[in-house]
């Protein structure tokens, strides 16, 4: 922890506490990646960053929560066990409704994904923390993995017949080449729209919070109450968005899985 503390202090000193030239705090400073444990692997920068730290925290929190909450395995669940069971049922119903029972094979993946994104989003709401999902490279890596995995499942289940997914039915032969190209582009937009949605929502919300926080400080005791009231309401909205985006991320994964398994739009 001393290494981390020292690194944080050094970074903060190096950036002058994240102040803009005007003296207001820089709203983008919160998204800065800091190297906590510098590490180089084959010429690549593989440092342990604050982003990686929060991913580790999220993964440990989820593991601790599920294992600890289910430790008694009571028939009549305690409150904590109820929360674990509700999150299980929530995702299980999501998979069953969107993919059908054939999709329950992929339930562990969807559950992990949902809990990971949800925990990262919610951790981002804690003051002084770091929002991992506000970086497009993280959300894009998740989305690209889902995209490749789902496409692989499609080819594995249907073989070359999966290519028929890109051929719309009941279309005159003349229009077919054009429509197939459009379908392929439409399929390729999936990782982008999936990742941009999560990243944009998280980054925009957290930037807004910081900007209005700066207004509170700048307007002082007399004028600061209006932005403060707005911030309270907006924090509530942000918590809703944090949940909603994790939900949307997971449900879209289910919809893509359904396309790959059952091959219809």
């Amino acid at each position, binding site marked *: 922890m001393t290494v981390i503390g020292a690194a944080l202090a050094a970074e903060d000193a190096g950036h002058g506490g994240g102040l803009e030239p005007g003296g207001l705090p820089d709203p983008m400073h919160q998204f800065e990646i800091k190297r906590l444990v510098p590490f180089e692997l084959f010429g690549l920068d593989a440092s342990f960053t604050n982003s990686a730290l929060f991913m580790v925290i999220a993964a440990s929190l989820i593991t601790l929560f599920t294992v600890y909450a289910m430790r008694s395995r009571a028939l009549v669940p305690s409150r904590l066990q109820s929360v674990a069971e509700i999150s299980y*049922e929530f995702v299980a119903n999501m998979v069953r409704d969107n993919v059908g029972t054939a999709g329950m094979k992929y339930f562990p993946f969807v559950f992990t994904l949902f809990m990971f994104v949800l925990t990262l989003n919610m951790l981002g709401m804690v003051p002084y923390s770091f929002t991992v999902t506000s970086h497009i490279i993280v959300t894009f890596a998740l989305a690209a993995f889902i995209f490749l995995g789902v496409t692989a499942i499609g080819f594995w289940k249907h073989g070359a017949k999966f290519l028929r997914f890109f051929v719309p039915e009941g279309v005159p032969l003349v229009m077919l080449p*054009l429509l197939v190209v*459009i379908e392929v*582009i439409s399929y390729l*937009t999936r990782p982008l*729209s999936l990742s*941009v949605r999560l990243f944009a929502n998280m980054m925009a919300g957290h930037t807004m919070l910081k900007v209005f926080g700066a207004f509170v400080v700048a307007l002082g005791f007399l004028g600061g109450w209006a932005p403060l009231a707005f911030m309270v309401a907006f924090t509530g909205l942000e918590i*809703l968005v944090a949940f*909603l*985006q994790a939900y949307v991320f997971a449900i879209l994964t289910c919809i893509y899985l359904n396309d790959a398994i059952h091959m219809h739009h």
Partner: protein
Amino acid sequence: MAGAENQSGRKSGGRDADSLRQRLDALGHELAGAQARHHQAPVSAPQGQGAALGQALRLGVELVAGVAVGGFIGWAFDRWFGTAPLMMVVFLGLGAAAGIMNVMRTAKRMQADAAPFKDLPSVPDDDDD
């Protein structure tokens, strides 16, 4: 004497069992109703203004992503074949078409999800969880 007592005891026992069964049935019905309500709740998508905002953003991102991916594919083809700016122009158009198609599909799915009474099961639910 003993036989009569036994008889009456069995009779009252039978009545008890009947009333117990009735109560059990009534409780079972209530439980099934409560479970049905409980199971409906978490399945339905989050409602309200936040959800509407999320849907609007989803449609917007879908549209822009089509154009962006189309533009990127065109740009990459141009670099490979040296046909700038022909491919980019063509694929920007195709990307816009793909984006609009995606928006229409997403909107259709949202409409289907928002349809009234979609939560009612079309066939009786027979799983015993």
